[in-house]
């Protein structure tokens, strides 16, 4: 005779909590859905953002596999002729001045075949991961829609742009040319390279971000003036990529780690549709070697960005340096985990994973990318932990992330020690990745 296992109260409670959280997460995603894509947040971010859509698709696939595919198709429908995927695709139905810098600033013209107004910079390439996740949620539906055969050449062109036009250091890594391209807009890692940039005069533009969030949590006016300078110089150079155009050029660990993970996935996608996966595997191996040689500091057990203009490493302990954990076969995975466990990031307690060194004098738990934690970088680290067999740490991080979101809501970013929520509420990728974490059990 068998004895039925007894269900303890804690696990029953967790199931009930997760069910409510799952419903609430889906409410955010349906509320922020705009017919073919999802806005990151209804007020602060009223258009489609590139890497947001990737993380959103990873969760949206649990609500609707079709929508997850549409999310990515909508973004790549505005892909530029040169292969770049713009960081914002503007919704023509939203007022031109609802977001700054808007379409009038970027003047993307006919840079994409559809002539959809977009920005001219890019964001981290999490899209191949998202496409594969969307496909796997319902392969039958994806096959009917021809999803992978349609997405594969677009994803390949996107990566090709980054691997060629953006290899500004000539060392076989992609460079970002604006802090916004890192996704971690205001990270202290960009302070030194950014300080060389002459800011645009304050009166020459009007910020829109301050209407939706306290100024103390947003970038300063001086930094904003530098952001606008970099963006307008790039625009005025016709968005051509060369070291002479880009006063700011950085080889960023997370950016390149996503590119490498993406190449691994492109190999899987290629194989699934009868194309040759080998070139993607070779690219991934080459980039991993470059990443190790250029950006890894063995003594620190950490990856650091490299400033292409000066050739110097930027020794800033920001979360970007932990993100290469998502690279399959990374030879220093265990060292990175050790670094994440130490006082700077306190993996076992801090949640979400802090965006910046908890022990740094300028650590600020409420300031945009200067301390608080984001669910997307935490999700990536969780994904990396699972990839490298660190299942106990992964399960623990997952449980605490879900608890955090349950207590704080679907905020844009969170104080990793107190759990105080910041930025936008009803933030799409927080909701989407919550759905994914719930269903990863």
């Amino acid at each position, binding site marked *: 005779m068998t004895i039925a296992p007894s269900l303890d109260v804690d696990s029953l409670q967790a*199931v009930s909590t*997760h*069910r409510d959280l*799952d*419903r*609430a997460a*889906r*409410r955010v995603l*349906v*509320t922020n*859905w*705009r*017919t073919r894509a999802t806005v990151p947040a209804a007020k602060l971010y009223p258009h489609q953002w590139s890497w947001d859509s990737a993380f959103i698709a990873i969760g949206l696939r*649990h*609500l*609707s*596999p*079709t*929508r997850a595919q549409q999310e990515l198709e909508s973004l790549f429908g505005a892909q530029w002729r040169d292969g770049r995927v713009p960081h914002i695709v503007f919704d023509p139905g939203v007022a031109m001045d609802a977001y700054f810098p808007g379409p009038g600033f970027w003047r993307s013209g006919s840079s994409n075949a559809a002539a959809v107004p977009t920005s001219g910079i890019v964001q981290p390439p999490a899209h191949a991961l998202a496409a594969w996740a969307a496909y796997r949620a319902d392969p039958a539906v994806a096959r009917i829609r021809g999803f992978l055969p349609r997405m594969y050449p677009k994803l390949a062109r996107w990566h090709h742009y980054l691997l060629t036009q953006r290899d500004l250091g000539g060392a076989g890594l992609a460079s970002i040319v604006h802090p916004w391209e890192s996704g971690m807009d205001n990270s202290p890692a960009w302070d030194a390279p950014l300080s060389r940039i002459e800011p645009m005069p304050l009166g020459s533009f009007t910020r829109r971000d301050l209407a939706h969030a306290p100024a103390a949590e947003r970038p300063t006016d001086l930094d904003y003036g530098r952001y606008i300078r970099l963006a307008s110089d790039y625009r005025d150079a016709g968005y051509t990529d060369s070291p002479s155009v880009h006063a700011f050029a950085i080889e960023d660990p997370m950016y390149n780690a996503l590119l490498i993970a993406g190449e691994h996935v492109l190999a899987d996608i290629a194989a699934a549709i009868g194309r040759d996966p080998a070139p993607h595997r070779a690219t991934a191996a080459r980039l991993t070697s470059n990443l190790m040689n250029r950006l890894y500091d063995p003594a620190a057990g950490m990856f650091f960005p490299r400033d292409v203009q000066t050739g110097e490493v930027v020794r800033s302990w920001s979360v970007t340096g932990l993100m290469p954990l998502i690279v399959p076969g990374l030879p220093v995975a265990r060292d990175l985990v050790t670094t994440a466990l130490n006082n700077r990031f306190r993996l076992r307690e801090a949640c979400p994973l802090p965006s910046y060194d908890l022990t740094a004098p300028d650590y600020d738990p409420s300031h945009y990318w200067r301390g608080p934690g984001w669910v997307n970088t935490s999700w990536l680290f969780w994904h990396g932990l699972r990839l490298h067999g660190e299942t106990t740490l992964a399960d623990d991080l997952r449980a605490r992330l879900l608890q955090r979101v349950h207590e704080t809501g679907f905020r844009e970013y969170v104080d990793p020690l107190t759990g105080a929520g910041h930025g936008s509420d009803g933030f799409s990728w927080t909701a989407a990745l919550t759905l994914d974490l*719930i*269903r990863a059990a």
Partner: protein
Amino acid sequence: MIRISCQEQLLPGETLQDKWEFAQRAGYDAIEVRGRGDFAFRDRLPELRRAARDGVPMPSVCVEMLHFFGAFDADLRRDAVAQMKSQLSVIAEIGGPGAVACTPASYGMFSRRLPPFEPPRSEQDDRAVLIEGLTELGEHAAREGVVLALEPLNRYEDHMVNRIEQAVELIDTVGLPSIKVLADTYHMNIEEDEPTSALVMAAAHLGHVQVSDSNRLQPGAGHLDWAALLGTLDAIGYSGHLAVECRLRGEPVTAVAGIPALLRRHSVGVAA
């Protein structure tokens, strides 16, 4: 866990008890009965009472008439109101607490998309008629402890209430909690910018849901995104039935038996 009911005419069997036997085996949770005019529904009371006593759950009635409370003709309007009041009373007796009686504003009476395009009654007068009818029916529903569900129909079937937000606006104007919105996935697919967004906006007013695919056939036969629809209904806390009201493609018994599995396969809630 979603709850699915099936309209009685789609189920094989002579009696409601036979139909329920079949429905249960196919995975349905209830039967939606149909209410004909001339007090035919009231006249079925002995049959309905026997079925209820035998445990057949019948939480809703869908009206089956050709004139409704928004009719141009005053006599037809009066009759429609009398019929609906009777149906509300009958479903209160056999349907249990929270039972639902469904009605559109009109059906097949006028379409602004078909000649002669301009209806014989002004929009203002349409509205007055609808509010008067809803008030009388809503008050009766409240007395009976049941819900009147107002169903928007697509533009070719009704010229007054096509979208969920129009129904919500009328219900808010009348101000009776006994009147709710009926969301029908087929009509929504034609009329709403985005059906799931309409559901989110109407969440507090949603009283009943009828399901059929984009082509009016059984769920799965058309192109509706069932995962998104069912995931949204669960997310906004809708706990009523999904009543299957459709035409059937293929062998009817097989077709109707396959619907619960299709819907449950695309229901995205986290299991208890």
